[in-house]
């Protein structure tokens, strides 16, 4: 499919509609006539702002061009954008007007604008209602960021932006060979607990599966729910954990095969084994009623000392700042080794740059959007973000010299212990249907409605269906 919309038709949508109205339409929806109005991108090619390229302005931004920013108003809020990144851009281009907005419904709000050829310049595509990256790529809606990554970085003109990032960051945003998305926040996943509670009770973070279940038994005997996740809206926290175990048992290729929709990727032995282990945790150590709770409700219970382990990413501490009691001391541990024959060490963690940002290729000011990203990746940009959100960024060493909170210290320790063994997967960004099915299947598995075999077969069936669906763009890594 061609990336540029078909502009040959001189029918504007308005005339089509006017004509449609006069014809009455319902009787004979003339295909040719209507194809012009079914999402035919921009009617007129968008004027794109461009300025002169200089050492100061390597991306050639038009200093006067307005810039429209849309931020996902979720766990990180919008303050980091309005109070840190936007002032940086504004300082550089005082004449540029920045139009900022924030929403929780990214797809609902923006999908029509992209379809209508009137997108904002810069989008933080995140949250449960983010726009399908696959569809955006397929449609040529995202700006190729190669130029940005090759531009000199803000703080050291001798160094390219690309070289300031933690390895793997650019690759994470590559679709079909081109980098389209900047994943800005570096997230470490694992099982979170209160260091204070564990110290008081004399519990040590377990390293093997046997230690893990033994500790869960102890916790249960102490009258605390040993393990929980929020079934209502956060089963993906749990499937991340199941797949982490699968990766530990069978190595990171297990996840790569799943991403690549390989035949039998889900029914592979490591996945099934991991599902069995976790189904048992679900049956023995979880509270059934938590399937109906949302993540903040479960987190509240953990804050109250009623839940011991909670799977999540390193944004958790920041999200919970207002609710955690003093001295709670969040800490994270990697998923314990499943067997002694595991292909990955017990210290390996799921770590990945997350929280996607992209620049609209068909926006009015794509160069401004890229410059905004360059500013985000500067020292001042990352420092402000880290301080406000207590999260790590994808810029190497960006947290150096910044005092970190207990949870973040623990996360960055886990990350360095994991070293080269950090792993991740991409399929939820690539195939949202697979993600949706996995959420449902995970709840069914963990709350005892389906067993491990049913779980893997069900997922394999969905993966196969996606593979054979010609309307879905495929990706591979």
């Amino acid at each position: 499919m061609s990336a540029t919309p078909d502009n040959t038709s001189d029918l504007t949508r308005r005339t089509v509609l006017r004509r449609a109205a006069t014809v009455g339409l319902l009787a004979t929806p003339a295909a040719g006539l209507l194809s012009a109005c079914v999402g035919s991108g921009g009617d007129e090619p968008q004027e794109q702002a461009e300025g002169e390229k200089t050492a100061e302005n390597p991306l050639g931004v038009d200093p006067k061009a307005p810039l429209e920013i849309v931020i996902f108003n979720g766990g990180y809020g919008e303050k980091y954008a309005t109070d840190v990144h936007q002032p940086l851009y504004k300082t550089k281009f005082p004449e540029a007007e920045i139009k900022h907005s924030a929403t929780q419904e990214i797809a609902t709000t923006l999908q029509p604008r992209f379809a209508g050829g009137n997108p904002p310049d810069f989008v933080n595509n995140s949250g449960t209602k983010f726009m399908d990256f696959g569809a955006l790529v397929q449609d040529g809606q995202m700006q190729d960021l190669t130029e940005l990554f090759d531009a000199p970085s803000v703080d050291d003109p001798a160094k390219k932006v690309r070289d300031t990032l933690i390895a793997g960051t650019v690759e994470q945003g590559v679709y079909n060979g081109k980098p389209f998305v900047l994943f800005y926040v570096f997230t470490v996943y694992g099982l979170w607990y209160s260091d204070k509670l564990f110290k008081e009770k004399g519990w040590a973070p377990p390293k093997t599966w046997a230690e893990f279940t033994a500790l869960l038994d102890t916790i249960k005997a102490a009258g605390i729910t040993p393990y929980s996740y929020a079934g209502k809206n956060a089963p993906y926290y749990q499937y991340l954990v199941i797949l982490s175990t699968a990766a530990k048992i069978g190595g990171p290729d297990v996840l790569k095969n799943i991403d690549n929709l390989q035949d039998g990727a889900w029914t592979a032995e490591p996945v099934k084994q991991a599902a069995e282990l976790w189904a048992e945790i679900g049956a023995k150590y979880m509270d059934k009623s938590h399937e109906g709770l949302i993540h903040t409700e479960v987190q509240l219970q953990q804050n109250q000392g009623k839940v011991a382990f909670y799977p999540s990413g390193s944004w958790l501490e920041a999200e919970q700042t207002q609710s955690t009691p003093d001295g709670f001391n969040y800490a994270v541990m990697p998923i314990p080794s499943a067997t002694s024959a595991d292909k990955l060490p017990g210290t390996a963690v799921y770590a990945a740059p997350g929280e996607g940002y992209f620049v609209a290729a068909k926006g009015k000011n794509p160069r401004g959007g890229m410059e905004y990203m360059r500013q985000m990746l500067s020292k001042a940009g990352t420092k402000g973000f880290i301080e406000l959100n207590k999260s790590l960024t994808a810029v190497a060493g960006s947290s150096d010299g910044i005092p970190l909170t207990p949870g973040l210290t623990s996360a960055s320790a886990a990350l360095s212990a994991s070293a080269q063994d950090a792993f991740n997967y991409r399929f939820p960004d690539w195939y949202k249907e697979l993600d949706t099915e996995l959420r449902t299947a995970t709840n069914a598995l963990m709350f005892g409605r389906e067993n491990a075999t049913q779980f893997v077969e069900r997922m394999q069936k969905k993966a196969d269906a996606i593979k054979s669906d010609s309307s879905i763009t495929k990706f591979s890594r």
Partner: protein
Amino acid sequence: MRHGKYPFVIGFLLAPVTLYVVFVIAPYAQAFYMAATNWRGLSPGQFVGFENFERLFQDDVFWKALQHHGVLLLALPLLTIAIALFLAFMLNVGGGAKQGVMVGVRGSKFYRVVFFLPQVLAVAILGVLFQAVYRADESGLINGLLGGLGMEPLGFLINPDIALWSIIGVLVWQAVGFYVVLFSAGMASIPKDIYEAAMLDGASRVGLFFRVTIPLLWDTLQVAWVYLGIMAFDAFAIVWTLSVDQGGPDGSTTVLGAEIYRNAFVFSKYGYASAMGVALFFLTLTFAALSLRVSRRESVEM
């Protein structure tokens, strides 16, 4: 009719028809076309003919949703009408004879006001409200009560066997008041003499209910059935805001509206979503046509 009929007719129809065609018919016509494409929301989709429909008929979720509409179509009207009818009867004639005059039970006025109340609450509000009512531990309104009685908490929204019924519960909860009012008015308009005649024949009060009230309310009951039936084909908003995993657990509460929304706005499969919409359109149309046909019988001569 003389006096220049056509200018008048056109004058009266122009504005409503224009608005309607521009804002309703044109978008839907496009949606019908979309159903035959693999459009993913952004660039023009390719024309794929009936491929979406072929896939639809093999889609388990689609059939599951249909099944749920079947349950809704039976349960929602039956429960709502039965409860509303009983309540309305109590409010109008249930008070028995007082000083020789039949009245509703004491406090009828109050009840009538209270019962109608849920009707004025928006679904967005109900979604939040019933999350609290149905919560699966003792912090839930119902389970708090059950716990107080020493009973095990029920997973209203998380047990796939009862989740759909919990959703139906909310719909009934909201709808009953409206039909109480509707039936009350119907009962009030039944002429006294008919009751009197039946009483002279020795009919008991229960007998009156079945032999006089119900037959004379027949038309109203049918109107109620049609309204509730159309409601049964929707139910999207409450499923989307209230159920676990938006239609779960395990798809046990999903309805076509939710699947359309999911396919369109989560999976960006507008073509496929439109095909589902077209299917829903024909279902609703069939139901409406059938029920209108059935209800077009002569009303009981009074």
